[in-house]
């Protein structure tokens, strides 16, 4: 697993954790809001608008009991009055627990005070009746006033209650909107993380697998094609080399009877040259179609570049082309067939020289890179051949690695095909960058040992 993939998986898990926290928080907030709403609605049912009416009817009943006890002078009504007044007292106390607002509570407190006054008047009436046998009219008036005040306060309480309920409904509306928002946000977050996760999963797992599959299929098809090409090439080589041998033998015999510098001698020289050319085509084609397996050993790229320079610098100097090696002190080591790599380097340097013609510069250097080879992203060593030549035209670039494609008057057109085949046999590749009029850089890309 690459560090990059690990980082993404950690990020994905963190995002899931955040979403879970978010969902948990929403659930907690929602349940709190719902329980608040439930409590408020319960109390709202309990605290009906009938609070004023109830108070009024209870007081009126007390009034009538008191008046009845006044008229009849009976103790029965008085004791019922006492019972009911006690019950009303309890009722008033009970209301206190269910009230929510200060206005409601202050109205109830006023009712309480007024009720005490009412009871005091009632007690006074009872007492005066037992002492004097009658009731003063002003006492009745006092009682009536106290009762009226209580009614007014009851109405005030009812009013306050309606207000409170209005506020409550407003708040509930607000809570419900908040709940809606929380759930919508939660849903969006879950969908977003889901979509993001799916995208990451696709990018990290499915897409690379698909690319790898396509590359592997292409690679397999190419290997299959090259394998059958190898068999074909061996057969063709056999069929061509035998007649070529026969021609060569006959030409050898002819030469023994030919005097030098005659026309026949010239003919034979041409024949020998053409035989060599045919043989070169056959052996190049064989190199391309069935390159020998690389004999892998430890190779230092910088040493290899220096050896190539020493080998080719003299012949390039004749064309005023400077061949140099640039090193940055990075001592890499690769596993490769030194002879085959040198063959590729020589081929590339000669191509570069052909591209320059006269007067120019070819630089050999190494660098490290991370490149996808055989479907895997790998650390690689790149051996570069950079020239100051003409660059490669676009139409030539497309066919650069096609076997038998050449822009030179002589040449089999197999050099780069062979070079590519050799690099592939090393598990590497051959790449190039070119700018018209500025030059071309070829890179031998080789996997670095892990």
């Amino acid at each position: 697993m690459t560090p990059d993939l690990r980082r993404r998986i950690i990020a994905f898990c963190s995002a899931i954790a955040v979403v879970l926290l978010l969902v948990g928080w929403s659930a907690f907030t929602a349940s709190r809001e719902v329980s608040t709403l439930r409590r408020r609605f319960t109390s709202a049912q309990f605290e009906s608008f009938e609070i004023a009416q109830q108070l009024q009817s209870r007081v009126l009943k007390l009034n009538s009991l008191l008046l009845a006890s006044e008229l009849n002078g009976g103790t029965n009504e008085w004791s019922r009055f006492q019972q009911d007044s006690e019950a009303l007292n309890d009722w008033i106390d009970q209301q206190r627990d269910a009230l929510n607002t200060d206005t409601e509570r202050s109205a109830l407190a006023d009712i309480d005070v007024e009720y005490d006054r009412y009871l005091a008047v009632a007690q006074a009436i009872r007492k005066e009746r037992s002492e004097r046998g009658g009731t003063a009219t002003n006492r009745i008036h006092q009682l009536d006033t106290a009762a009226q005040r209580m009614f007014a306060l009851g109405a005030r309480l009812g009013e306050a209650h309606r207000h409170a309920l209005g506020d409550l409904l407003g708040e509930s509306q607000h809570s419900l909107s908040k709940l809606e928002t929380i759930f919508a946000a939660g849903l969006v977050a879950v969908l977003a993380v889901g979509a993001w996760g799916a995208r990451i999963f696709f990018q990290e797992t499915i897409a690379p697998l698909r690319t790898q599959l396509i590359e592997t299929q292409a690679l397999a098809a190419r290997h299959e094609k090259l394998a059958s090409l190898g068999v074909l090439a061996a057969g063709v080589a056999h069929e061509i080399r035998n007649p070529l041998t026969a021609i060569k033998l006959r030409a050898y015999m002819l030469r023994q009877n030919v005097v030098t510098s005659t026309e026949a001698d010239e003919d034979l020289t041409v024949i020998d040259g053409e035989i060599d050319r045919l043989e070169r085509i056959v052996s190049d084609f064989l190199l391309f179609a069935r390159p020998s397996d690389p004999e892998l050993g430890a190779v230092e790229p910088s040493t290899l570049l220096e050896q190539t320079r020493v080998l080719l610098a003299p012949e390039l100097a004749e064309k005023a082309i400077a061949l140099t090696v640039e090193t940055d002190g990075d001592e890499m080591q690769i596993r490769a067939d030194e002879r085959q790599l040198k063959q590729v380097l020589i081929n590339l340097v000669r191509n570069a020289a052909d591209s320059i013609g006269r007067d120019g510069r070819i630089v050999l250097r190494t660098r490290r890179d991370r490149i996808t080879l055989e479907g895997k992203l790998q650390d690689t060593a790149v051996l570069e051949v950079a020239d100051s030549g003409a660059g490669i035209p676009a139409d030539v670039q497309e066919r650069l690695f096609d076997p038998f494609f050449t822009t030179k008057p002589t040449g089999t057109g197999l050099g780069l095909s062979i070079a590519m085949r050799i690099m592939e046999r090393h598990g590497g590749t051959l790449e190039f960058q070119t700018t018209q009029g500025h030059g071309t850089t070829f890179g031998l890309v080789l996997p670095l040992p892990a």
Partner: protein
Amino acid sequence: MPQPAHTVLVVDDDEAVRVGLRSVLISEKYRVITASNGVEAVAAFRAQPCELALIDMNMPVQNGWGTIAGLRSLAPALPIVIITARPDQRALARETSVELMEKPLDLPRLLRRIRELLATPVASS
């Protein structure tokens, strides 16, 4: 040439190559026996032993390796040079320590090598 002519056996199924090689070797003063496959080669050797054999690999009836085995069973020290047009025989030749030259032959090199091999005293058996 004062010394007696050496005999070279040429085994190749390709008539043009066989005849051409024969002409070249005769012009170099060798006695030449030819055969177009391994069975003929062994029979020819029985009839008249040679001191060196040039053997093609790709032949009908019996291929080069069978021919080499047959000849070596009669003359274990017989110098042999494989001459082949096939590109895939090099590794096997190296493993079995038999000399190999690929067609089209480098004639000066082949003739030089034949001279060297025949000059070695262990040549005939």
